[in-house]
């Protein structure tokens, strides 16, 4: 990804914004141009619910180059309260406390920085809900 593609995706990443099919209500994150459930091309932007549960997860010890300095870090498959499934990093959590079914909420964080100029990419991560 280049700086420009990061700029193009900034709203989606910052606001945790996906797309919703006007016809059937299916939601996607990242956004889609066409609904894969019903085939409609009538899609609108939607801010996704910020709460969900961990369906499955991993802890990455062997990261790709861009993420080398952040490892180890946890990434989860999360089902939001509206049923939309997303992938995202978990933050503010001990790895041995992560459980399938754990309640999490979206939070605005730095994703990573790269390049000689230290270009910083921000976006959404997920942290445990403290009851």
């Amino acid at each position, binding site marked *: 990804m280049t700086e420009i593609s990061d700029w193009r995706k900034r709203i989606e990443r910052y606001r945790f914004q996906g797309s919703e099919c006007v016809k059937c209500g299916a939601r996607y994150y990242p956004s889609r141009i066409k609904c894969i459930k019903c085939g409609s091309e009538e899609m609108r932007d939607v801010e996704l619910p910020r709460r969900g549960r961990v369906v499955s997860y991993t*802890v990455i*010890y062997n*990261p790709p180059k*861009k993420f080398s300095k952040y490892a180890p870090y946890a*990434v989860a498959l999360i089902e939001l309260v509206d049923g939309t499934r997303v992938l995202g990093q978990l933050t503010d959590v001990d790895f041995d406390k992560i459980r399938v079914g754990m309640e999490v909420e979206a939070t605005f964080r730095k994703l990573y920085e790269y390049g000689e100029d230290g270009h910083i990419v921000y976006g959404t991560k997920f942290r445990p809900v403290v009851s």
Partner: protein
Amino acid sequence: MATPVIVGYGLTKIGEHWRKDLVSLGYDAAREALSKAKNPDIDAIYVGNMLGMALDLQGNLGGYLADELGYRGVPALRIEASGASGAYSIAEAAMAIKSGLYDFVLAGGVEKMSDSLPSEVYYALNFSEDMYIMNSTGLTNAGLNAILMRLYMERYNVAKEKITYLAVQDHENAQYAPHAQFRRPITLELAMSSITLADPINLFDASPIGDGAAFVVMASREKAEDLGLDYVEVSGIGISTNVYSIVERDDPLWFTASNKAFSSALEMAGASKDDVDFLEIHDEYTIMGVLALESLGFSSKGFGAEDVWSRKYSLKGETPINTFGGLKARGNPVGATGAYQVCEAFMQLTGETGENKVENAKIGVVHSMGGVDNTSVVLVLRR
């Protein structure tokens, strides 16, 4: 329509080829395949390759290899479908022969991975998935497969040992395969205790980084018979794609593209699942192999690992798989891997197997995936 057949194959040992580059490695395998096919007049060349543009910084590989081989003027193309590139290029060759346009096609794949740092290789391998998702999450292919593995273990209450056992079996089968990257048997204890790549996936659940090239020469059956060449028929071809991201699939543990490609290939071959004598499946990660066995219908949902554990798929089992070690032990030079699988199926069907022989094998199936079932290619080979 012409019937596509394989009349010769060539492959290099998989490993670290420090003195070879992408093209010279491809040259060696292609040269061997051409010699075995008695050097026919080649009408076209298809080169499967995934990482050339990312790691070797070399594109237009078709024309480059054609020129090196001395086939100036011959149409040549690089085909990229991630881990399925090699199988896809052979499928394209088979379709070109079927169409009647070409009589002889050289097809296969080549990959050079060991020149680059592992972190660069892992990053480039991510290209088989949606890079926006990979870049937003720090996921790797191992990470995606780890998420699937945990989901599988939780949903079906399966112990990890039973999944990882596929790696033990792969190593067992690779001992007698001269071209395999790892010919050393391993214990389950070793496989379970190796370093973690992406929890719960560890080093022995993952296929290694390696260099390799494999090619076949394809012909129409008519031409092969005219020239008195021994052959194996490519009687079924199936290619399919899936919803790209695992999060949007109805069931991330079900590979719809593999399932569909297999049905189409069987239908074209006029064969049924029960006719299959052995399988070469895409087990880039142990869990992928297990899910492939379920998605192709050889194991019921949730029983793939159990069946591997009970040795249903061993060399002497009901349906042997990965008879030369699979992606884990034979190796996984990505864009060449599917071509290795096809060469191995050819070797099984012609009896050039040594210790790895599957008795009375008449029909072999090659299953190859690009990404996590993003693109799947299935070929049915028949003696």
